Structures are given as C-alpha cells and as structure tokens.
C-alpha cells in the first residue's frame, strides 16, 4: 500500500464536497478520513450497483501476503448511472488500483475517489 497524503490532500478536500453532497442526505460521512487519500491495488471481487449507495469490494494482499477484502463506498447508482457508470464498470476479477479516503479507525473500508486499470483507463477522479 502506498500513501500519498501530502500530494492528494488537496484533492481529498475538493472531493469531499463532491462526495458528501449525495451521501450526506442519507447518512453521515464522518467515519471516513477527509484529509487522507490512500492507494490500493487489488482484484475486484464485486461491484454492488445498489441503492442507496454503490460499493466496490476489492481483494488486496497485505504486507504479510494475506488477502483482505476492502469495501469502497461510492455514489448512488441512479446518479452514477446518469453519468454513464454501469454495473460492468468494475468487472469481477479485474486488476485495478483505487484511491480512497480510508476509515478513521483503520478498518478495511473507505470512500471511493478514483480507479485506474492497467490499460490506463480511469474511473472517477484521477488527475
């Protein structure tokens, strides 16, 4: 896992508003660290394209080689669908690198920021 806190801090702040507009109407986003963005590389297990929010399940190997399932929360499927996102956007089995705002308590979950596939294709915010 590589951490890019200084580089991505400003991005996180900018994205906080983007993310919390749809999310905050439904629940508090206080469990996520709005000041930190981390990168994870792993294999997509499942893209839950469901209400009220979508979730990406990502299998990541930790430092000891153990497989850990991460949960990345994203926007509402209706909003994402209107922006061109589909259930097939994150196909199971695909390798991908993801950026997320992790949970404050260190649990394997966070708010999705962006993703980049090995072929260079990006989803979400990846500037």
């Amino acid at each position, binding site marked *: 896992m590589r951490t890019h806190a200084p580089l991505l801090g400003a991005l996180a702040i900018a994205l906080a*508003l983007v993310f919390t*507009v749809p999310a905050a*109407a439904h629940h*508090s986003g206080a*469990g996520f660290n709005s000041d930190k963005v981390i990168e994870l590389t792993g294999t997509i297990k499942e893209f839950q394209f469901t209400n009220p929010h979508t979730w990406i399940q990502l299998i990541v190997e930790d430092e000891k080689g153990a497989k850990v399932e991460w949960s990345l929360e994203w926007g*509402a499927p*209706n909003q994402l669908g209107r922006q061109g996102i589909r259930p097939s956007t994150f196909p199971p089995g695909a390798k991908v690198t993801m950026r997320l705002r992790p949970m404050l*308590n260190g649990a394997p979950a966070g708010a999705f920021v962006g993703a980049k596939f090995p072929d260079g294709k990006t989803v979400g915010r990846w500037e």
Partner: protein
Amino acid sequence: MRTLSMALALILVLAASPGFGQDRPPALRSFETLPDWSGAWAMVGGTVFDRATQTGEGGAVSKGVRSHPPYNAEWEAIYRSHLDRRDKNLFPDTISNCGVPAGFPRHFNLPDPYEFVVRPEQTWVLTENGPNVLRIYTDGRKHLADQWETYTGDSVGQWEGDTLVFTTVALKGYRDKDVILDRTGLVLSDKSRATTRIRKTDATTIEVQMTVEDPKALTKPWVVTKQFRKMPAGTRLYDYGCAENNRNPADVESGKTLVLGPDGKPLNK
C-alpha cells in the same frame, strides 16, 4: 296557472339535484391551458434549510444565508439539541433517513431528480429519492374535517393563472420523533400547516415558496423558497430503495452512522 305549475316543478327538480344550493366544484382547467412543467428537475442548492448551521469541511456554500425557522424558546432548544448531536456526527433520529416518507416540507428539500406532473384534477410532485409522492388535489375538494396526521399531510388547492396555490394540513411533524426536515435535525410540530405557491419563473426554473405556520413551534410564519433547475432532456429516473443494500444504517441506540462490512457486521461500532 299552467306556467306557475311548470315553474314549481322546475324548482323541485333543481332542488332534488345533487349539488343544488351547495358549493359547486370549480370547472377544471383543460390540459391545454395548464403550464408545461414536464421533464426532470433538480433542486438548486444543498439539502440543509439553514445553511448558516453547516459546519465542517464542505460546509456553508452561502455563508450567512439562513432559512432558520422563527422558533419559540421551547422548539429552539429542541433544534439546538439536534445540532449538538449533529456536531458529534450523530443523527437526531435514526428512522427518517431510511424507510419513511420524507414528509412535508422536506419533500421539497431532497437530492436527486423531481418530476412535476400537472393534470387538471391533480398535480403530483414525484421525487426519485425516497421515492415520495405529493398529491395536490385541484378538483375542488376540501380538506377533511377529521383528517388524521401523516408525514406528507393532505394538500388541496387551485390554479391562480400559472401558479399552483395549495394548503397542506394534517402533518404529524415531530410528534413521533421520526420526521426531521434536514440532516441538521430541523423539526416542526404536529400543528404545522403550510400554504405553498409553485410557479415556473423561466423556461428552466420552477420556484416553490412555502409559508409554514406552526402555532406550537413558531413565533411567526416561516417562509422558505426552493428552486428547481430543469435537467437535460431525456433524463431518466430510477428506483430508489434505501433498504436494498443499506450498509450505512444509523445505530438505533447511539445515532452513529455505521459502516457495514461485506459480512453485514459494523466496521466502526
């Protein structure tokens, strides 16, 4: 004599007719004369009525712009207690964010698209989020004298030119502690009622002005205006079901937002 008998007979026939001597329902407007509010619409601005209460990152987008209800001391204290919980990232209530109608006036304070369906006898305001339906009867009916209170209440009204004017009554408000008007925990009582005016101010804007009266909670009428911007032509609306896969339920005991892992167990309890 024959003429007099015929006149008496005519009076008797009219007197026996339904509606004679009573208020007649107004003639319904034809479709062609009603305004065109078709398409999908999105509320302008955030979903917090009183933006001056917003704190933290991503907070007030229009600092100082307040839609703070003119509460009396008792209800201001209730609202302040909710703001205190909000500042601790705890929901004022754990029910209204998933599973019950948004209610009035929160119906006009939701994210996601709206539809305003205008018919001669009714207008429906449909919200994808929820989903919620507000029915506004314009067929001349009156509020029921013994109407029981609900989340959305009972709305009847009439057209004044191209402005739809209606009253909403029988709102349960915060009586059962499951209706808040936004995530700051703004509330009204079960004595609240409103007069609302909806009109299209230009080709891409619908304005909803609500004058809320609440003798139990407010010291004077609370006037709130919400605007809705037309979305691109062809915009589709979809299912919204909070219970489908809610991995962020509010903890019933604490009000804390939980994050559920793939096994359904909280990651942050």
